[in-house]
Each structure stands twice: as C-alpha cells, then as structure tokens.
C-alpha cells in the first residue's frame, strides 16, 4: 500500500495530532480526549453549539470545519467508522451549560446508531440536545423515501448555514427547523471513477472497469444507479442533472447554490470543467446561481469521482452561506 503513514493503528491519532498542531491558532483537543477536537476560542455560552461525530478517512470533513461560524466540536472515529456514542456523549456534555445543542448526524447506519445512543444518554442527564439527521443522496432511496437517503456532500449546506445561524445567536428550535428546510431543498448525486485504497485493508475500496464510471455510488462504495461507460463531462453532467431535476422541481428564476465536490484524486481542472458544464445546464433552465463551491471537501482517500449538490436557496440561506468562518478547511 502506497500511503505515507506510520503505524496503521495510529493513523487517526497521528493525523489528528498533525491537524491540531498545524492549526493550533484555531483548534485544540478537549484534553485528555484526543478524539474530540474543539474550537480554541469557544462559542459564547448563550449560543447553541453544533457538533458531529464521524468516521475518518474523508478529510477535510469534518475536522477541517471546526471554527467560528461553523462547527464547535468534532468527535472523530476510526477510518470509515463512526465514533461510539460514549465519545459523542463526551462532546455533548462539554456544552451542557449552553441553552441547547445540535448534534448533526449524517444518515449512515453506524453514525445514526451511535448518535441516537449519545442523545439518549444525554437526555438521561437532562441535557437539551437535538439531533438533526442529514440526507441528500438521491441515488440511495427513491423519491418519497427521502428520509432513507444517505448523507452526501450536500450536507455541507446544513453545516455551513446552521454554523453561521448559530453564531448569530439563533435558538435551538430555529436551528433545527432551518436545518430541515435546507435538507429538504438539497439534492446530491455522485459519480465514482476509480477507487482509492483503504488504509486499513490496503485494498481498493471498490472495483470499477477501466472504461466505466458508477453513477450514484456512496462514499464507501455503496451502490446506486449503476455502472455505465465513461463519457465526456458535458454528457455525464447532464445525465446527473437530469436525474436531480426529475427528483426535485426547480423553477425559472430559482437561485441555486451549487457544490461540486471532488472525492480525492479527481483534479481541480476536472472539477472546474464539470462546473462549467453544470452552470451551462442551469443557465439553460433560467436558473440563477449564488456563490458555488468547487473543491475537495468530502473525500474517500484517493478515490477519483465527484458529486454535484444543489441547494435551492432563500436570501437568508445565501447570507448565511457566505458569512465568514475561521474553519481551517472551509473556503468559499
């Protein structure tokens, strides 16, 4: 396996140490728990903190998003596996003097089980924490069963918008309700091109032929719409957008925030070409665009592939989207 690491058992710890050292002006460990990373300058006690637990191996999400105007804490699990509810509980307890807490949960089985466990334990301790389950990946469940869909790159809109809103002093109920509105207006579809290597098994994360791509594959190789021959960017983008447009009805004059996320090895050159085709498609439908995001944010090691996420936005969402954040790895 061609990865530059030290002991396999220490991958996550070594990475977190590097992250906290490299960004020591903005983040720190909640000592002695080296799997719980928090803001260096904590949020005002009157405001609602936002936290999430997630498996690692998908950097920069979510540790890179800790900062003013974004996340308050990240509980980091091992490679591709959710941190245990016990650890998430530690994160929650850290904020128990705040008037409320939002626990974000991306809709993947392990994350949900552990998140729910943490919430139950916190409720036993009378902590006012609410979970928001995030989902957006249209390939993972059909229209009508939105709440069975996986959390994909479009969850980014929730993180960022709630992060800004909570920084602005909004209360727990408003945050959860805004989170649900953002979720309901987000759609994501992804494409896998070639597999990265699991740092644990040393094997390819999925298999895909030299002349094929896989539309709708999840970040851990979960299946979606299926394989097809590779094609040019314009065709792939329009196939994907056709599917998204089948799933959600957009109208003339809607203002969308597009997010083109690279999954690891796909070059920025390609992501920009894809973005060019995406904007052309949207423009054809008279759809307006607000501050798109084009880069690698939710990766699966060195997998090649990308996803397109669209948020149908309100003015409030747009303002929150572009509100400043100090997170080390989130940049509009």
């Amino acid at each position, binding site marked *: 396996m061609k990865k530059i690491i030290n002991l396999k058992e220490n991958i996550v710890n070594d990475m977190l140490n590097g992250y906290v050292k490299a960004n020591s002006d903005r983040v720190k460990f909640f000592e002695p728990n080296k799997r719980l990373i928090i803001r260096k300058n904590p949020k005002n006690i009157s405001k609602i903190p936002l936290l999430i637990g997630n498996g690692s191996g998908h950097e920069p999400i979510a540790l890179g998003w800790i900062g003013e105007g974004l996340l308050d804490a990240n509980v980091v699990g*091992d490679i*591709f596996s*959710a941190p245990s509810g016990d650890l998430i509980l530690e994160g929650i307890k850290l904020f128990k003097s705040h008037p409320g807490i939002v626990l974000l949960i991306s809709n993947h089985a*392990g994350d949900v*089980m552990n998140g729910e466990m943490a919430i139950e334990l916190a409720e036993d301790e009378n902590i006012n924490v609410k979970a928001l389950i995030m989902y957006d990946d249209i390939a993972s469940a059909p229209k009508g069963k939105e709440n069975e869909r996986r959390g994909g790159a479009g969850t980014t809109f929730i993180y960022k918008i709630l992060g800004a809103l909570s920084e602005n002093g909004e209360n727990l109920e408003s945050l959860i309700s805004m989170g649900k509105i953002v979720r309901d207006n987000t759609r994501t579809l992804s494409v896998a091109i070639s597999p990265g290597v*699991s740092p*644990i*098994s040393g094997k390819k994360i999925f298999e895909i032929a030299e002349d094929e791509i896989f539309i709708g594959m999840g970040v851990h190789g979960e*299946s979606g719409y299926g394989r097809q021959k590779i094609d040019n960017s314009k065709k792939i983008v329009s196939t994907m957008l056709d599917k998204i447009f089948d799933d959600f009805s957009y109208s003339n004059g809607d203002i969308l925030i597009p997010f083109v996320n690279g999954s690891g090895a796909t070059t920025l050159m390609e992501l920009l070409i894809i973005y060019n085709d995406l904007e052309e498609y949207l423009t054809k439908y008279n759809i307006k665009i607000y501050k798109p995001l084009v880069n690698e944010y939710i990766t699966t090691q060195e997998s090649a592939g990308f996803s397109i996420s669209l948020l149908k936005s309100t003015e409030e969402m747009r303002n929150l989207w572009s509100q400043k954040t100090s997170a080390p790895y989130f940049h509009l």
Partner: protein
Amino acid sequence: MIEFHKNWLHRSYLVIKDKYKEIDSLDQQIGDGDHGSTILRGLDKVVNNFENIDINNEVDFMSEVSRLMRISMGGASGILMTIFIKESTNLNINNIHKSVLNIFSSTIEKIKKRGKVNIGDKSILDIYYPLHVKINNEDDFLIDEIFSSIDSSLQNTKNMEAKVGRAKFLDTKGVGVIDPGAFSTSIILKEFFREIFNEKNN
C-alpha cells in the same frame, strides 16, 4: 463473578487473535475489511487493561468493559456487539438456563431496536436468535449441541442477502460469504458457554 467475565473475554480474545485475519478477509469480500481487526482491538483494549479497571461491582465492571470496547471499536459493530457483553452480567450461575434465556432475549431485543435489523438480515442477530430458540426449546443444554447450533447458524449466514451493514450495498448483497460479525459473535458465544461449563464443573 467478575472472574467469570474476565476468563470468558480473555479466551475470546485469544481465539479472535488467532482468527482475526480470517475475519478481516471475510469483511474484505463484503465490507471494508476491518471487522476482525476491529473486534480484536475492542477485546485487546479491555483484556489487557483489566487490572486498570478499578471496579469491584460486577455490573459496573462490565458496563465499563463494554464502554471501553465500544469506544475502541466504534461503528455499528461496536455498539451492537457490546450489548451482549453488558447483558451478560445477568448470568445467574444457580439458574443458568433461565438467566441465559433472559440475557439472550434482552440482547436480541436491543440489537433489533438499535440496529434496525431483523432475523435473516445477515448479521450478528443470526447467531443470537437461533441459539435463543434452541435453548428455549430445551430444558438443559449440552455444550456440543450449543456449539453445533452456533456453527450451523454461522454457515446459514453465508447464503443470506444482507439487509444491514456494508454488504447490503453490494450488487451481490454479500451472498456466498459468511457474515464477519456473525463469525466473531460465534467465537464470543462459544467461549461464553465454554466458561459456563467450566464454572459448572468446578
């Protein structure tokens, strides 16, 4: 009874240590290739730290053991596989049959709820459930029968289609491969019963 649990987990640890690569390779075929390492990491964390767990009450001791295992394992398997570990403190050596039935029924109930999983979904439940049925149907139990029930349940997972876990996302739904979580569960349960028989015979 703390000794019972220590012995049981220690034996399980030794067997898993011997077989974790085999389990990883099952998980490589239908998952992300880490289940053997994950369960080994969980057991290693507790078994080699027993002396540092300064708790004398059996229930609290095992609650801490399962917490440590859960934390070091993480994921779905961490939370689901430690349910039995914690429930096991309900073992009553003077009323083995009844207490084991209780342990199994509450374990199964909790796994179903937490894991949103059913019988036949190709998971650890497919070891617990048939064994529970078997024990329920008999007045006493023989170790050989328990073991062969576990073995056949494990083989049965091979042809199941996964409806939970990563295998559910494969085109094949994992058909043709033994469920890795069921494999490690089978080891832990065998060692559990072996330890019960040891206790009885002492």
